[in-house]
């Protein structure tokens, strides 16, 4: 299918694919097995200028947008979903700065993220606040020109490895959802430590860790957006990064289809390659069709984000929901096509199936995405009346 990419977008695709094939593929199984953070690979992406695709040239980036970012994320995830999310989560941490940062904050933080010298991360979730982000308990108490942070963020991707963190904390509990504020934190700040590193089902090379704040004193210049805008920062960020998770899902799914097709041509049963059986062909045809539909939705959503519109929640929820459900279905089917061999670690599809699952969970579970979509439908109807 021709998605009418520009020459630059094609270059990004080819380059990301080349690095994924040449550098990521040989190490993905070991990274998965040992749960090792892929620093070497992050350096490869940095050298190739892929880390700042969505960051303006003024701040050292490539000057592209969500689509460029999705193209690279998809290609990397096609080979390894864990490396893909490590790459993508840096954008999740950088987007709030890009959207809400002052010129000063942007010039301070974005160039190092764009060059790949530093990774970023985003901290919203807590032990008692997952889908219900309004339940966060981390506090930021005003103290003159400073805020004092206390609390623990949980399951933060790139935690401990990133240098730059966007963190949401309550500045005024009484105000409820208008009482949260976003802050930029730096690794190494006094009172900011890292807790437990999680042992996960999939995306195992990605770091998922606690951020622990104990009387962490941050200057008010580190505040992102206005006081009380924390949840708006978080929601607007997620609206723009969910296509990235969609792209990760499409990549993982495509990787598993590639493996399934190749395998089906070499595996002989009943004297024929299994690809000659209609039952197998139908599975492959459905996989391919679903992936293409998901990809088209992801690209269309990314392009919509790049128009600069604010009205994007519904579309980005749809693309993340659809692409991640496709990824789960398709990777499960890939294991089915490889059957017993697919269940074994010698083949990459079992890992792809494990990696796919997270795309239905993070950046909002797929139930929450459905809530967002349904809410948009109801609002639209109300607006017409």
């Amino acid at each position, binding site marked *: 299918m021709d998605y009418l990419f520009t*020459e*630059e977008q094609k*270059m*990004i695709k080819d*380059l990301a694919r*080349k*690095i994924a094939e*040449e550098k990521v593929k040989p190490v993905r199984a070991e990274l998965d097995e040992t749960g090792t953070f892929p620093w070497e690979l992050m350096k*490869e992406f940095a*050298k*190739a*200028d*892929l880390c700042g695709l969505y960051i303006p040239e003024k701040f050292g980036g*490539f000057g592209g947008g969500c689509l460029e970012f999705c193209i690279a994320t998809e290609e990397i995830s096609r080979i390894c979903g864990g490396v893909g999310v490590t790459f993508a989560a840096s954008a999740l941490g950088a987007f709030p700065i890009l959207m809400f940062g002052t010129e000063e904050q942007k010039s301070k933080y974005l160039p190092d993220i764009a060059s790949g010298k530093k990774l970023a991360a985003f901290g919203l979730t807590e032990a008692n606040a997952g889908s219900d982000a309004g339940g966060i308990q981390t506090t930021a108490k005003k103290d003159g020109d400073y805020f004092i942070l206390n609390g623990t963020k949980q399951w933060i991707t790139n935690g401990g490895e990133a240098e730059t963190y966007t963190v949401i904390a309550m500045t005024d509990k009484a105000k409820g959802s208008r009482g949260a504020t976003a802050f930029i934190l730096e690794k190494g700040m006094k009172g900011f430590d890292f807790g437990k590193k999680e042992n996960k089902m999939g995306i195992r090379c990605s770091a998922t860790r606690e951020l622990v704040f104990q009387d962490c004193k941050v200057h008010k210049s580190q505040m992102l957006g206005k006081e009380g805008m924390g949840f708006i920062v978080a929601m607007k960020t997620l609206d723009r990064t969910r296509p990235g998770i969609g792209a990760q899902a499409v990549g993982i799914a495509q990787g598993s289809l590639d493996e399934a097709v190749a395998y089906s041509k070499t595996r002989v049963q009943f004297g024929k390659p299994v690809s000659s059986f209609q039952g197998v062909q139908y599975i492959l045809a459905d996989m391919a069709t679903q992936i293409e539909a998901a990809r088209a939705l992801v690209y269309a959503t990314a392009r919509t984000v790049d128009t600069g519109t604010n009205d994007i929640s519904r579309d980005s929820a749809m693309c993340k929901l659809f692409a991640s459900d496709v990824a789960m279905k398709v990777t499960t089917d890939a294991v089915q096509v490889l059957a017993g061999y697919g269940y074994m670690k010698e083949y990459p599809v079992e890992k792809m199936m494990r990696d796919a699952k997270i795309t239905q969970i993070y950046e909002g579970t797929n139930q929450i995405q459905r809530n967002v979509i349904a809410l948009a439908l109801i609002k639209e109807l109300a607006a017409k009346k």
Partner: protein
Amino acid sequence: MNIIVCIKQVPDTNDVKIDPKTNTLIREGVKSVINPFDENAIEEAVRLKEAHGGKVTVITMGPPQATEALKTAIAMGADEAILISDRAFAGADTWATSYTLSQAIKKVGSFDLVLFGKQAIDGDTAQVGPGVAEFLDIPQITFAIKIDIDGGTIKVKRQLEESAEIVETKMPAAVTVIKQINEPRLPSLKGQMRAKKAEIPVWTAEMIMAEPENIGLKGSPTQVVRIFTPPPRGNSEMLEGTPEEMAVKLFNKLKEQKII
């Protein structure tokens, strides 16, 4: 520091076919790439530039398609590239090629270092680097695995069969590198954008003041009589096992056949 890198575009495989009629390589349909050792030379040049400053100029003698290889070199970090191309260069052997490249290098002007890959994977002669050094009348060091530069002096560790030696000389000098010297980088996105825009000048025989009798087929003392793939030798048998076991097996075979 000004570095010139001489590169060659080669078919993307060791397994090229030979046209039985003309005894030349069949290049049609085979993807072209930068000779792998030359990628190491480009990488080394870019690293030396990053460490010591200066400029990297990449040159190749070849047909217009070789521009592709030069663009890749720019994407990897070279500053400039020049294509040396003229119908009159066709059929050049290593002598005529060395002469032609040296004429082009003279036209580039001042330089401190000329880098080459140790050999091209299509011809495998390893003669062009040393040949150019002779035409330029500068010292040459072959098979480098490490290059250190200190002022006007270059110190090179060169790989020999079973050992390595360190050789030092004054620059300008010519050095050929082997694979172990570095890991060539992939072209970056910004590099590719620069390469896309880069204008690559084409220098003809006249522009580099090459003597017509020294270039192309006419200037080549080597005449290829025949190129062929030797037929596989029949009836061979591979012995397996530890060296001791193989020696015993070999001894028994030779005895069996009454050779000893």
